[in-house]
């Protein structure tokens, strides 16, 4: 079992995730989609690197 995560592979991820989401991808769309995935992954890494207290709840509220 690897001790570090495998590197993110946007091409293979996009193809697999598309199946899960029920999306039919034209092969010509893969490059721009994966470019966007890389930007999103970088944004997620930036946000995830910030230590939050466990008590920090998500912002949107629901009032019953």
């Amino acid at each position, binding site marked *: 079992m690897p001790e570090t995560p495998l590197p993110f592979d946007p091409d293979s991820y996009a193809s697999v995730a598309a199946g899960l989401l*029920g*999306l039919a991808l034209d092969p010509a769309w893969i490059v721009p989609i994966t470019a966007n995935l890389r930007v*999103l992954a970088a944004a997620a890494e*930036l*946000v995830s690197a*910030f230590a*939050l207290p466990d008590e*920090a709840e998500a*912002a949107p509220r629901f009032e019953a």
Partner: protein
Amino acid sequence: MSALALSDAATIAAAVSSGRSSAREAVAGALDRIARIDGRVGSFTDVLAQRALARADALDGALGRGEPAGSLAGVPFAVKNLIDIAGLPTRAGSKINRDRPPAERDGALVRRLEAAGAILVGALNMGEYAYDFTGENVHDGDAHNPHALAHMTGGSSGGSGAALAAGLVPLTLGSDTNGSIRVPAAFCGCFGLKPTYGRLSRAGSFPFVGSLDHLGPMARSVTDLALAYDAMLGPDPDDPVATSRPPEPAMPNLESGIGGLRIAVAGGYFARGGDPEAFAAVARVADALGASRTVELPEAGRARAAAYLITAAEGATLHLDRLRARPRDFDPAVRDRLIAGAMIPAPFVERAQRFRRWYRAAVLALFDTVDVILAPATPCRAPRGGLTHFILDGVTLPVRANIGVFTQPISFIGLPVVATPVWLDAGLPLGVQVIAAPWREDLALRVSRHLERTGVCAAPVAELA
């Protein structure tokens, strides 16, 4: 041409209310300019001449019978085409939505403006599904910046900014999820108000990112912003996030000046990553206001990243069925961003929403010692149309995703902002964000009005005809 055609809303309302002019004259003047000029600007997607003239005649008749005039009597206005207009499908800049049934009634804000006497003359161009900062649209054609037709209007409320700068109407409505009112206001050189999240009803508008969407007015004067804002205030059970706070109108204190207000400039993240002109515009406004203090919004870069993630994920969720059924009917640039957004793992989005809670508390603490914060609206002047990449601070970046770097960290926590236009030289304008604490639109408008009155900010009509 009618003398009213290039007037601001307050002037038109005063003329119509007093009987010096008629609503028909005001509306006909706007329709005439739209017919003569908009072919070059591309700001309107629908012109409602018959409806507008009928309402103008009805208003003139009512005023002739001595009925009271509203605060916006006879003022022609137009709305971004994601806001419902009875009888039209709400296209939201898309091809797909044209297949929707026509809206059964006008959106809430249209009804409130018309209740104050304003008259809707049409629907305005926008970036597809509001996922845009450029003002470009592959289905309806691009909106063009009236101050330099080869340049972008900014988006996604591109038509809302362009119609003002071209002098077609004095008042428009836009929406702002990440900067879509403030960016076109900056690029087109007009004023725009993004109110506090939840302040103005979004009922009867096509959504994009429910947890970030706002509607607001755009105009060529701050008084017009305030008049329209006041007319649209009030709770609305049809919008789940509309506040139940009582209306807090801005007009009563609009001319109060800046005495006693603590005003600071946003430093750190907001002082880098843009062209020098963007910061020069802020410096000019700060000098005029005597604002020498700098404050830092903590973790603003991370806030922008979190807003980016939430936008992509929520937007994709909204459109997933359409992405499955009609992917080729989207603007390719929008489709590819949305598909990538659909693939974001849920923990990333939830983390961004939790970070949002932390960031909100950290930024609100700043307002214990400051009333208004200044920041650039955009990192640059309006780029040329079609530009896909630009260089900011020495780094080559995609245009579409990065025009909103300075607006996203502000709307992320719903702060009220007035985008004010600054003309540094003979070139295109820049925008400065005048930011206040939640529910203090009155302060952002007061400061902006002071800047307008002292000649620091202005929204002239472009010389097109």
